[in-house]
């Protein structure tokens, strides 16, 4: 799975995700990626979110929307909301989850429960920051 979240010069946010799915999946299995609020969600000015990992777990957790709800209704900072959305149901939702989030202030958050998440960001066109391991 790949994803992107962006903030443009008009202050608007957007999120996108695209996936080839789980290897060895049954035919007809749909992932979290196209489920709005599951793997992909954006809502000015709160955040834009794109998820990756085991889709069944992300769909059940409505993970992308969870980040937004924690920011909007619980007043959590973006990074805290991202971490909580990945860890708060870990007894029930056991599986790989990773996400990237961005808000209208240009703050970026990465949260994941794996040891590898290929990720990067760039603010106002400056030198990009790339990271792979936890």
């Amino acid at each position: 799975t790949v994803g992107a979240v962006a903030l443009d010069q008009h202050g608007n946010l957007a999120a996108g995700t695209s996936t080839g799915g789980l290897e060895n999946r049954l035919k007809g299995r749909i992932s979290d990626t196209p489920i709005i609020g599951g793997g992909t969600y954006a809502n000015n000015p709160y955040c834009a979110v794109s998820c990756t990992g085991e889709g069944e777990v992300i769909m059940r957790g409505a993970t992308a929307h969870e980040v937004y709800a924690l920011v909007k209704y619980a007043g959590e900072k973006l990074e805290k909301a991202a971490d909580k959305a990945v860890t708060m149901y870990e007894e029930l939702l056991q599986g790989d989850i990773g996400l990237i989030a961005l808000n209208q202030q240009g703050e970026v958050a990465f949260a994941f429960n794996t040891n590898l998440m290929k990720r990067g960001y760039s603010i106002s066109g400056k030198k990009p920051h790339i990271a792979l391991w936890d």
Partner: protein
Amino acid sequence: MSKFAIAVHAGAETVKRAEVTKELENRYREGLEEALQAGNAVLEKGGSAIDAVAAAIERMEDNPLFNAGKGGSLNLHGENDFDAAIMDGHTLNVGSVGSVRYVKNPIKLAKEIMIRCKHSFLSGTGAEEYALTQGLELEKPSYFVTEEKQKEWHESVLGDHRQKSHD
């Protein structure tokens, strides 16, 4: 110039660190950097967040290293199929695509659906027919299959189906 920003990911999984060579790490880094450049090229010119997201993801779909578009994982039958979605935080408009097999860039189809279609989520042959009506590029199945994914599929088919499958 007002502030703009972009972040990308290309998957999260738990792997043995030894499985990821320095050379593979460098290819990951290059792929991520190319995606950020593609998105920044849109944002620097005052382009929309939607277009920046689509440009960054399209670049990663075209990169056989990542599990989207070319280089996607194979299902139980050794076939590719793809899902994608895009969402505009300003209008809450969305475009989603499920189980398409021949669309070269599923994120472009998701964007067309968001902009032009009366529905928000199209799947299977209906989504592919819509791609045809919008003049999007379709590819033959072999375009999407890489040697690495084929090898992984053979190992998993010959191996234990119950093994944990990766995104």
